[in-house]
C-alpha cells in the first residue's frame, strides 16, 4: 500500500492525482483457473475500467478451522499481481460477510455449523448481539487475508463488512472491523456500502458508499416500471449533506442481476435489461455527481461444485457485461463507451447547477435532466458544463440545442459537453452527440444519428471540408456524402474562442467511418458497430494505475475498431478476437496519423469449425447404497461433532456431520420382524428420496424461493408390508441433495442442508443411521465392483463419455454442455428429474427439471483441459426417483440429445502488421 490515497468533496486522488473510479466487480472464486482471471481482467481493462472490485471469500479459502488455502486457483497474491500488471486499481472487500449468492454468504460451513456463534453479531430478527467467538474467528481470517491486500500497491480502499445494519444500528460491528483493519496495517481509506442509500454508518465510516439495484423483478419490463429511478434521482440531494468533504460513490451499481431456481435464463435477462439499463443508470449516477462507481458484476462466473447459495443455479452469468463464457455483450460495449469518455474528459470536479449555462437554448428543456458545471477547469475563461439529457419514453425524442437537433433514443441518457476544453487546446463549444474519446489531436464521435458540433479556436485554422480527411491518410472506404460544413463563424465571438467552426454530420452506416480535419484536430466519426468495437491500445510502461486525468501521461497509441473483443497477452501486447465472418475494421495510429480501413478476412477467420464429438455413452446404475457393500458409511454417532446443536443432540444435518454441502446418503440396515413398520416420516433439505430395498418410497422437496418462508411439514408415507424383507436385512436409504446454505440476506444462513427428520412408525431413528457423503460412483473403478450385480432399471444412473479438446490454433471458442430439452430425446423418454454434470470429476452443472432455467452449462477452462488433444471426461448422474431409468444402451442412445457446443467462435489475430509501430 505504498500509494497515498486521499479524497475530497469531488473525487479520490492517487498520489495527488484525481481519479474517476470506473470499477467492475469480478468473483475470482467463480473463475476456477488463473488463466480465466487473466483473461477477464484483460477484458475489463480493455473495456476502459480502471479498477476491479474484488470480494475475498472466507469460505473459499478456509475449509476447516485454522486451515487456509491460498494456492493455485486460490492464489490471491497472484491475482493481485495480475491487477497491477494491467494497471488496474483494486477495491478490496474481504468481508467477513460478502453475500454474493455464495453459500452462507461466504461464511465458512464450519463456522455456521457452530450454533453458539452469532454470525455478524446479529440475531435472526436483526437485533445486535456481540459474539466474541465470531469476532475471534473474523480476526483469524483477516490476519490471513489482510497481508495479501496490504502487500498490493494498487489498493484504493478496503471495505469492512457488507451491506450491514442492525435494528438499532449499534456501531460495534463496523467499529471493531475498522479498528482491526488499522491494527493489521491497512493504510488506505475504509469504506462501507449502505444498501438502503440512507446514510447508514455515514458518521462512523471514512468513505460512505452505497449499493443500488433498482431492477430485480423480471416479471415486468423495467422500462414500464414507474419510479424506477426515484432513488437514483435523489442521491445527491440525500447524500451530499452527509458527505460534504467526501466523494459520492456507489460500490455496487447494477450491471445485471442473478437468476434463481425457477427464474429466467440469463439470455432472457440480458435481453430484458438491454444496453439501455446500464447506460441509463450509470449516466444518471454521474449526473448526480458520483465520481466512483463499480458495476456489479462486470464479469459473469460459474457456481461450480457447491459454492452457490440455496437460491442460485449453476450459472452465475449475472447478465454481466462480460458473460460467464467470457464473451462481450452489448452491455459491455455500452459500459465501454462511458469508460472511454470518462477516461479522456475530466468530470471529477463538478457541481450541479439549477439553471442551464448562459447561451444554451433548448426547444424542449424537459429533456434536460441535469446540468453540472466544471469547477476545476484548466481554462478559467471558459464556463464548461456537462449537460445530461434523458429520455424515459418508449419513443425517440429530439430537442433543438441552439438550433441543432439532439436525438435521444428510447430509455437513453446522454452526456453532452458545453464549452468544454479539448486536449488539443480548442474548445468543444457545443455538441449534440456524446463524445467517445479524445486525445491531443483526435476527437472520436459516434455517428449513429445525425448531430452537429461547434469547435472554438483562438485563430482561424485550415479545414478539410470533405471527408477525404488528413491528406496523408488512406481512408477506404470514404464516405463521400458527409456534409462537413466547416466555416468560421464569429457572429458570437467569445474571448477564449473567437473563431467557431461547425460540423454537421449525418448518420453513418454501422460499419462506416470518416475523418474530417480542423487545424490540428482530427475528428473521427464512426458508425454504431465500429463505435461499439472501438478499442484503445495504451502503453504499459507503468505498472501502477496510469489513468490520471488530463493531460494524459500515457495516451492511447492506436485505436482499433471492428474486432468483437480485445485481449492482451502477458507481455502487454494486443490481440483481438474477430467474429468468424468478414469484419470491417479501422486502425488508426495516433502517433503517425496513419489510418487504414479494410475487411478482416485473413487466415483461418472464415474456416469452418469441426464439431466436438462425444464418445459413446456408457450407462450404469449408480446408487451405491443399494448394490454393494464397502461404501464408506459411518455411524452418525461416531462423526466428530462440534457443540453446534446444543438443543438438538440428535441433529444429523450436513453441518452436524461436518459435511456442509453437496449430496449425502443416510442408511439404516436392520432386520425386520413381524409386524413390519407401517409408516416412514421424512423431512430433509433440500431434495430427498427414500428407498427401501432398492425401491423408491417417496421423494420430496424442502425448498422454496421465498426467503425464510416456513418449509413444508415432514412427509409421512405408508410402507406396504410387501416392501419389507423378513428373511434378510432391510436396507433403508435416504438420498439428500443439498442446495447450499442460504446467503443470509433475508434469511438464516445457519439453516443446514441434510436430513432433518427420520421416523419409523413415529420412532426417531436418526441416531441409528449411517452416513456417507457424495456420489461415490464417481470415484469407484471397475475393480471396486467385483460383487456388483447390475440393475436393469435404477433411480440413479451414471453416464460416462469423453471428448478430445481440439487444436483450435488461433480460434477462441468457449464451450458448454448443451441440453436440448425441447427435443423428444431428452424431454420425453429420458424424463430426467435431476442431473448433475461433472467434468473431469468436478461438478459443473445442476439440472433440476422442476425449477430449470439453464440448459447450457459452461465448461470453465481450468476444469476443462484445453491442451490440444487432451481427453476430457464427462460424468452425468441422472436421478429419477419415481420413474426408473433403463440402464445400458437404451438410455445411452437417448443421451445423444446432449452435445458440446461453442458459445461463439472467434479468430484471434493482431491488426495488420504493417501498421505496427
Amino acid at each position: 500500500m505504498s500509494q497515498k490515497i486521499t479524497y475530497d468533496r469531488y473525487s479520490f486522488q492517487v498520489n495527488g492525482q484525481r481519479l474517476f473510479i470506473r470499477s467492475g466487480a469480478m468473483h475470482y472464486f467463480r473463475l476456477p483457473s488463473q488463466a480465466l482471471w487473466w483473461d477477464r481482467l484483460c477484458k475489463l481493462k480493455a473495456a476502459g475500467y480502471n479498477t476491479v472490485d474484488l470480494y475475498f471469500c472466507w469460505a473459499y479459502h478456509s475449509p476447516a478451522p485454522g486451515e487456509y488455502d491460498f494456492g493455485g486457483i486460490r492464489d490471491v497474491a497472484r491475482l493481485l499481481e495480475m491487477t497491477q500488471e494491467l494497471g488496474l486499481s483494486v477495491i478490496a472487500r474481504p468481508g467477513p460477510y460478502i453475500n454474493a449468492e455464495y453459500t452462507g454468504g461466504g461464511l465458512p460451513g464450519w463456522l455456521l455449523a457452530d450454533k453458539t456463534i452469532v454470525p455478524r453479531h446479529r440475531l435472526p430478527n436483526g437485533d445486535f448481539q456481540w459474539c466474541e467467538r465470531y469476532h475471534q474467528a473474523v480476526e483469524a481470517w483477516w490476519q490471513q487475508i489482510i497481508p495479501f491486500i496490504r502487500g498490493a500497491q494498487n489498493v484504493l480502499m478496503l471495505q469492512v463488512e457488507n451491506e450491514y445494519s442492525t435494528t438499532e444500528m449499534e456501531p460495534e460491528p463496523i467499529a471493531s472491523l475498522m479498528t482491526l483493519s488499522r491494527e493489521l496495517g491497512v493504510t488506505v481509506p475504509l469504506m462501507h456500502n449502505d444498501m438502503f442509500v440512507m446514510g447508514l454508518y455515514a458518521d462512523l465510516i471514512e468513505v460512505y458508499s452505497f449499493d443500488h439495484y433498482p431492477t430485480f423483478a423480471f416479471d415486468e419490463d423495467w422500462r414500464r416500471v414507474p419510479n424506477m429511478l426515484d432513488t437514483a434521482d435523489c442521491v445527491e440531494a440525500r447524500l451530499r449533506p452527509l458527505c460534504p468533504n467526501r466523494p459520492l460513490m456507489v460500490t455496487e451499481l447494477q450491471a445485471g442481476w442473478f437468476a434463481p431456481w425457477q427464474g429466467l435464463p440469463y439470455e432472457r435477462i440480458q435481453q430484458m435489461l438491454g444496453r439501455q439499463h446500464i447506460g441509463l443508470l450509470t449516466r444518471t449516477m454521474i449526473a448526480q455527481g458520483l465520481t466512483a462507481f463499480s458495476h456489479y458484476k462486470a464479469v459473469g462466473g460459474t457456481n461450480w461444485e457447491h459454492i452457490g447459495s440455496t437460491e442460485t443455479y449453476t450459472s452465475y452469468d449475472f447478465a454481466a457485461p462480460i458473460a460467464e463464457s467470457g464473451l462481450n455483450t452489448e452491455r459491455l460495449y455500452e459500459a465501454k463507451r462511458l469508460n472511454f469518455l470518462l477516461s479522456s474528459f475530466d468530470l471529477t470536479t463538478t457541481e450541479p447547477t439549477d439553471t442551464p449555462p448562459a447561451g444554451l437554448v433548448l426547444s424542449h428543456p424537459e429533456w434536460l435532466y441535469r446540468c453540472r458545471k466544471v469547477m476545476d477547469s484548466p481554462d478559467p475563461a471558459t464556463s464548461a458544463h456537462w449537460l445530461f439529457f434523458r429520455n424515459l419514453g418508449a419513443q425517440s425524442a429530439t430537442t433543438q440545442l441552439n438550433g441543432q437537433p439532439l436525438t435521444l433514443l428510447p430509455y437513453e441518457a446522454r452526456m453532452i459537453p458545453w464549452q468544454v476544453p479539448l486536449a488539443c487546446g480548442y474548445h468543444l463549444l457545443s455538441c449534440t452527440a456524446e463524445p467517445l474519446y479524445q486525445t491531443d489531436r483526435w476527437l472520436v464521435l459516434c455517428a449513429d444519428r445525425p448531430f452537429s458540433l461547434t469547435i472554438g479556436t483562438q485563430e482561424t485554422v485550415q479545414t478539410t471540408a470533405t471527408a477525404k480527411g488528413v491528406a496523408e491518410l488512406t481512408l477506404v472506404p470514404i464516405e463521400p456524402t458527409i456534409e462537413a460544413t466547416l466555416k468560421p463563424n464569429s457572429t458570437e465571438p467569445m474571448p477564449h474562442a473567437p473563431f467557431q467552426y461547425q460540423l454537421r454530420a449525418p448518420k453513418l452506416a454501422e460499419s462506416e467511418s470518416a475523418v474530417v480535419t480542423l487545424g490540428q484536430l482530427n475528428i473521427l466519426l464512426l458508425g454504431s458497430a465500429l463505435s461499439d468495437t472501438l478499442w484503445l491500445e495504451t502503453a504499459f510502461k507503468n505498472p501502477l494505475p496510469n489513468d490520471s486525468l488530463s493531460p494524459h501521461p500515457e495516451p492511447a497509441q492506436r485505436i482499433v475498431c471492428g474486432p468483437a473483443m480485445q485481449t492482451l497477452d502477458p507481455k502487454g501486447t494486443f490481440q483481438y478476437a474477430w467474429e468468424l465472418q468478414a469484419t470491417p475494421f479501422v486502425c488508426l495510429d495516433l502517433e503517425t496519423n496513419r489510418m487504414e480501413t479494410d475487411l478482416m478476412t485473413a487466415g483461418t477467420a472464415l474456416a469452418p469449425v469441426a464439431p466436438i464429438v462425444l464418445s459413446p455413452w456408457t450407462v450404469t446404475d449408480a446408487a451405491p447404497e443399494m448394490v454393494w457393500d464397502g461404501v464408506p458409511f459411518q455411524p452418525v454417532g461416531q462423526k466428530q461433532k462440534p457443540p453446534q446443536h446444543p438443543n438438538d443432540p440428535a441433529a444429523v444435518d450436513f453441518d452436524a456431520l461436518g459435511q456442509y454441502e453437496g449430496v449425502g446418503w443416510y442408511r439404516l440396515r436392520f432386520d425386520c420382524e413381524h409386524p413390519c413398520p407401517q409408516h416412514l416420516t421424512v423431512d430433509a433439505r433440500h431434495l430427498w428420496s427414500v428407498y427401501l430395498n432398492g425401491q423408491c418410497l417417496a421423494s420430496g422437496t424442502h425448498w422454496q424461493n421465498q426467503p425464510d418462508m416456513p418449509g413444508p411439514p415432514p412427509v409421512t408415507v405408508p410402507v406396504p408390508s410387501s416392501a419389507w424383507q423378513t428373511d434378510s436385512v432391510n436396507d433403508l436409504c435416504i438420498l439428500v441433495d443439498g442446495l447450499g446454505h442460504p446467503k443470509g440476506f433475508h434469511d438464516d444462513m445457519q439453516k443446514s442442508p441434510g436430513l432433518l427428520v427420520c421416523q419409523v412408525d413415529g420412532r426417531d431413528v436418526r441416531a441409528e443411521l449411517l452416513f456417507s457423503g457424495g456420489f461415490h460412483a464417481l470415484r469407484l473403478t471397475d475393480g471396486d465392483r467385483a460383487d456388483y450385480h447390475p440393475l436393469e432399471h435404477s433411480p440413479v444412473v451414471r453416464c460416462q463419455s469423453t471428448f478430445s479438446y481440439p487444436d483450435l490454433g488461433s480460434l477462441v471458442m468457449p464451450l458448454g454442455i448443451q441440453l436440448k430439452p425441447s427435443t423428444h430425446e431428452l424431454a420425453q423418454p429420458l424424463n430426467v428429474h435431476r442431473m448433475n454434470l461433472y467434468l473431469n470429476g468436478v461438478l459443473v452443472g445442476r439440472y433440476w427439471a422442476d425449477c430449470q432455467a439453464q440448459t447450457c452449462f459452461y465448461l470453465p477452462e481450468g476444469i476443462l483441459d484445453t491442451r490440444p488433444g487432451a481427453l476430457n471426461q464427462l460424468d452425468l448422474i441422472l436421478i429419477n426417483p419415481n420413474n426408473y431409468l433403463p440402464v445400458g444402451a437404451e438410455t445411452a442412445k437417448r443421451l445423444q440429445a446432449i452435445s458440446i457446443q461453442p458459445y461463439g467462435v472467434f479468430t484471434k489475430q493482431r491488426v495488420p502488421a504493417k501498421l505496427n509501430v
Partner: protein
Amino acid sequence: MIAIPKFLLQQLYVKGSLRLEPEGVAFDIKNSLGPGVLTRLSSITLDDTLFTGAQIKLHVDGQWISAKDVTEQTPARLGLNQTAVCVLLGASLSPGKHTLTVDLHSREVGQVVLTVHDQV
C-alpha cells in the same frame, strides 16, 4: 428477515396522522426510503385489536384497494416520497396514546414489521 434499522422504519409513519374517519381509523405512511412494491399487507394491530385482509383499506397511487387484494401477482406500488393512507374499517379510537403494528412484505426487503406509537 432483513435487518432494517428501526429509525428508518419509524420514518415511514407520519407522526400525528392517526385519526378517526367515518369508515374507521386511518393513518398515513410516507415512503421516505425508496420506491417500493408491496406484495402483502399481512396485518395491522391497533393496540390489542388485529385487522387483516378485507378489514384494511389502502389508498395508494390514486386509488383505493383492499389489503386482501395486495399479492405478489397484484402488488401495490409506492414511489419515493409518496404517501399511502391506511384505514382500519370499523375501528374506533379513543383519546390517548395508541400503538400500531404493521406487518407487511415488500419485494425489496421482504417482511417488514413496523411498530409505532401515536397520540390522539
